[in-house]
């Protein structure tokens, strides 16, 4: 064998090894993902038959990974309905039951204690969230403070939607900003764009004990999210699109939360907007929230 041939063989071998090393993460990643999942279309391009197959696959995967029998639905926006939410700051005592209810309802990772709601203990006289504190543990309410739960504001001009490079998040006809968890690439641009820090990233595969899994799930809301994707509050669309109240509202012991259809002039939410002193958070940013805060006095 000539020296030239020997060098060629050695070079080719090294090259092949380097290539295999370089693509190794892809093979690893592909091992976690079925072909069906890889080939799945965007939510809005799925036919009802495609969606039925996707849901069947997701339900099976949940059974395998978590041992739980869940039912995943895909409720659509109701015509003539645009959801609005209002929160009474005069009444909220900061007990965090809403955040806890959200954690359970939405099958959040148990280890990180994730929730779509953060409750701020605020200095009176300011709505500067920087001066708020979310880690208080003393008895509430502290008479020197007020309490402000913050969750997704379901903006009509949502910065998170504008920045998504792959259109994995969009605003639905009933005002809910949703995420296709199977289309999201996990770049976290939306997390950075949201001025309310309403979006969360799944750093790990969520851990939820089988018996604690909420089996009433929807594709766009509380089904267990994969690792590496964004998630956010959907006003519990798996409940609210069925006419039910959101879990955080039902959990509130003081009745601080008012939910309803902004397009219905006789709804409770419209009464609040017409009769109470109402403001939206960070109005100056022009996000046009569908979430309102109000006072009794």
């Amino acid at each position, binding site marked *: 064998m000539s020296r030239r041939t020997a060098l060629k063989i050695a070079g080719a071998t090294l090259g092949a090894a380097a290539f295999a090393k370089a693509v190794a993460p892809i093979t690893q990643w592909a091992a976690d993902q079925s072909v069906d999942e890889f080939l799945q279309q965007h939510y809005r391009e799925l036919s009802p038959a495609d969606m039925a197959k996707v849901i069947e696959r997701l339900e099976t995967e949940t059974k395998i990974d978590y041992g739980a029998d869940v039912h995943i639905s895909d409720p659509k926006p109701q015509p003539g309905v645009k959801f609005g939410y209002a929160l009474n700051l005069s009444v909220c005592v900061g007990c965090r039951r809403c955040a806890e209810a959200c954690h359970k309802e939405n099958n959040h990772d148990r280890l990180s*204690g994730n929730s779509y709601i953060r409750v701020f203990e605020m200095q009176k006289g300011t709505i500067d969230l920087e001066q708020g504190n979310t880690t208080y543990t003393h*008895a509430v309410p502290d008479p020197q403070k007020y309490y402000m739960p913050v969750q997704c504001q379901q903006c009509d001009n949502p910065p998170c939607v504008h920045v998504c490079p792959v259109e994995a998040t969009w605003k639905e006809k009933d005002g809910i900003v949703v995420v296709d968890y199977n289309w999201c690439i996990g770049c976290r641009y939306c997390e950075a764009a949201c001025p309310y820090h309403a979006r969360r990233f799944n750093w790990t595969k969520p851990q939820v004990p089988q018996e604690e899994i909420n089996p009433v799930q929807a594709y766009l809301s509380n089904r267990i999210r994969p690792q590496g994707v964004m998630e956010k509050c959907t006003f519990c669309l798996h409940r609210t699109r069925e006419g039910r*109240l959101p879990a955080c509202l039902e959990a509130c012991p003081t009745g601080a939360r008012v939910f309803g259809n902004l397009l219905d002039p006789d709804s409770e939410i419209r009464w609040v907007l017409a009769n109470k002193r109402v403001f939206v958070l960070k109005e100056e940013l022009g996000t046009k929230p569908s979430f309102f805060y109000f006072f009794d006095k």
Partner: protein
Amino acid sequence: MKAPRYTLCLVALALAGSAAGLLLSHAAPPVIHQAATPTPSDSSAVAIVRHAVTIKPGPATPTVLTNALNRSGEPVPVSCSTCHSTRSPNIERHSAAELTEFHQGLAYKHGDLSCLSCHNASNYDTLRKADSSAIAYPNVMELCGQCHGTQLRDYRAGAHGGMNGHWDLSRGSRERNNCVDCHDPHAPAYPRLKPVFAPVDRGARQQQERAAHADKESAHD
């Protein structure tokens, strides 16, 4: 096609009406404002069934705790009328602290009201309105509303008080709290409480995980 649907509406309304009537048997202003009547002339011809909004009733029989304890160590309640049907009340007494029997320890912090502002001296199984007419315990909301008009207004508008069920009454019913579900009538300010569900400190958690991991490693060695 139209007739059976309309009948369905009527049946649903009758049901809703009777449920509401049970809870608000007095000629109270209709707290249930949502029970709107679907008009039969509605040409959209979709059967709009309005489900009921019910309000949890107040306590049926008023009781007061005695000093006697039951086997589980809980104080035994006794019906107010047990004593008050035979004893005449002392109208000079203003709060439980001044009473020497049965009512001790009853927290009393409700403005300048005295016992008989709300309790009916001529029948202790009922309450007493400001015009001295009697009102049944389950209808306590009407009594509270005499002074707390803004709260009652907000309540009727659906902007005060907790609830469960459906925002869309065409798809299901709703159950609302009564005033006394959240407010102790003798000390109505909402009590201070311990917050639940403290946020997990990520730094502390990672430290714990590292420590647990290190323990495992050393166990292997």
